[in-house]
């Protein structure tokens, strides 16, 4: 017993990820935490997407189930679980059964290396970013097999479109990623800013990439000024195409293909596709955050430094939760004074109290120092999630030939030029450093 406690405590003093420390107990805890957090994020995303999209289109969105439709995702999940699970007669049973699991496995496995903080990752790999790109590219297999196994026209067309689209945009995505990885090996902050930090070896590890940004004192989106930004832009376009979201949602274009590759899926299996789509969105957003937006680092590390600013930024996590709690209480006060609304009111007040409690706990300095990095990472990812909804509310869907044209004739050449320019700029700074010394 004592040994077990010691084994559990021994990790807390180490400065490693659970995978790096080889601690089974904490690795399991982290896996479960990531899994639960991801499921909550998907549920929240479901609600937010409907609400935000509705407000963008001047509608109310879900209002009936719970206050402001807050319980709608849970009601939906229950509905999906209770629905009849239909497998079409002509379908290839085994492949039809396996396909959703491939997609879900690919979408969840990538979170093994996502760095929520310097120690808050399940593990850190030497090939971190390669692993993420590789495993997330496996999800296309699930989509293709799902479309084929349904033995129906719309799913097959959706699957063909999806495989062509994902394979083409992976190329542009890869080029953008390579140019960011190139930056991990270079001196200093780029075109401007002091370049004092030493050159690294270059790294593919997700934690290493963020640490390179910390050492060089610049987020890679600002490095070699337009270059990092353009690489980020290419990635941001490619990642929307990779996740089959609007305006690149041709594989599931409702107006042409009913629901694309998952037309024949119903009930629980369909919800697996849904889960996978949203967790894949979170996964690619966390790649973008890690590579270009400084991962877990707080904003403005250069301009606003010093212990005062550190303190101010450490208040943010608690303040965010307190703000959400305040919103809840405001809406409790606004709720119609009618006996029928009593339960809703109590529920919302309890939810607000819970958020407020979390917010207050986050104000404890030790706690905020420990989880502040998770907060900043999640906040940046949440920004991307909002962008996804925004795109869906704003852009019309591309035609397939337009999609291919953008991928191969715009993003690919720009990506190649970018890679070469990044290498040239990198050599320039390296030579500059050598001359100065």
């Amino acid at each position, binding site marked *: 017993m004592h040994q077990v406690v010691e084994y559990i405590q021994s990790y807390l003093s180490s400065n490693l990820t659970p995978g790096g420390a080889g601690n089974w107990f904490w690795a399991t805890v982290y896996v479960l935490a990531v899994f639960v957090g991801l499921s909550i994020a998907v549920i929240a995303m479901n609600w937010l997407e409907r609400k935000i999209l509705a407000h963008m289109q001047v509608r109310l969105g879900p209002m009936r189930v719970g206050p402001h439709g807050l319980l709608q995702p849970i009601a939906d999940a229950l509905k999906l679980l209770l629905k009849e699970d239909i497998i079409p007669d002509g379908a290839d049973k085994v*492949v039809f059964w396996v396909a959703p699991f491939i997609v879900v496995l690919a979408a969840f496995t990538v979170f093994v290396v996502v760095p929520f903080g310097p120690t808050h990752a399940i593990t850190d790999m030497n090939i971190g970013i*390669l*692993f993420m790109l590789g*495993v997330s590219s496996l999800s296309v297999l699930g989509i*293709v097999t799902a479309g*084929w196994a349904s033995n129906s026209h719309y799913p097959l067309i959706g699957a*063909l479109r999806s495989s062509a689209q994902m*394979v083409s945009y992976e190329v542009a995505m890869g080029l953008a990623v390579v140019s960011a990885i190139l930056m991990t090996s270079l001196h200093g902050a780029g075109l401007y800013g002091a370049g004092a930090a030493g050159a690294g070896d270059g790294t593919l590890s997700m934690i290493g990439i963020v640490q390179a940004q910390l050492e060089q004192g610049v987020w890679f989106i600002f490095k070699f000024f337009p270059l990092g930004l353009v690489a980020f832009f290419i990635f941001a376009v490619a990642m929307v195409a990779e996740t089959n979201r609007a305006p690149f949602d041709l594989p599931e274009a409702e107006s042409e293909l009913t629901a694309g590759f998952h037309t024949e899926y119903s009930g629980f299996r369909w919800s697996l596709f849904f889960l996978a789509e949203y967790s894949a969105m979170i996964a690619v957003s966390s790649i973008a955050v890690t590579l270009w937006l400084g991962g877990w680092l707080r904003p403005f590390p250069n301009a606003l430094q010093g212990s005062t600013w550190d303190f101010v930024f450490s208040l943010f996590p608690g303040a965010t939760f307190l703000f959400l709690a305040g919103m809840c209480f405001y809406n409790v006060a606004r709720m119609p004074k009618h006996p029928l609304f009593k339960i809703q009111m109590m529920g919302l007040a309890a939810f607000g109290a819970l958020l407020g409690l979390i917010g207050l706990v986050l104000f404890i300095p030790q706690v905020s120092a420990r989880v502040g990095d998770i907060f900043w990472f999640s906040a940046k990812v949440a920004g991307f999630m909002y962008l996804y909804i925004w795109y869906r509310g704003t852009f019309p869907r591309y035609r397939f030939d337009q999609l291919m044209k953008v991928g191969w004739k715009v993003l690919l050449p720009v990506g190649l030029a970018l890679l070469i320019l990044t290498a040239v700029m990198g050599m320039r700074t390296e030579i500059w450093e050598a001359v100065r010394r």
Partner: protein
Amino acid sequence: MNPPVATAFFFYFLSATVIIGGVLVITRKNTVHSAMALITALLAQSGLYLMLYAPFVAGVQIILYAGGIMVLFLFVIMLISIERTMKERQFNKQWLVGIAAAAALGALFIAVYTKGRNLFPNGRLQPTETQNTQAIGSLLYGQYMFAFEIASLLLLVAIIGAVVMAKKRI
């Protein structure tokens, strides 16, 4: 300090997956099932690379083979009518040649296993997992620069050739 993850259990598990997958690839009549079995075998193979402390090769295996090439395989297979190919009988009988080739390969393996002690260096390779990618990079762009560039040139020729053959008028 940490017990190694590369235990015998994982080796046998992954090898069995590769072998079963490989057998399924050639025995299944349905081509999509064959392709799925091949994907499984390739993924298990990348697990074997990981056990050899070669994470970079494992990652490239997943990206290129499982994620890239197999998608193209499936893409092509899906355009074929499976019902018709299922009824078609195999028209080339080459199992004699196949058995001869398999026997030769097996004999080679057995010979290496029994007599090959002095073919390989003594002692165990020090695992260099943490710097694997960097080591491969500096080898490719240092010692094997010429071979690397020649290979990339060959691939470029192949790409241009494919474009020229597929599209007469560009």
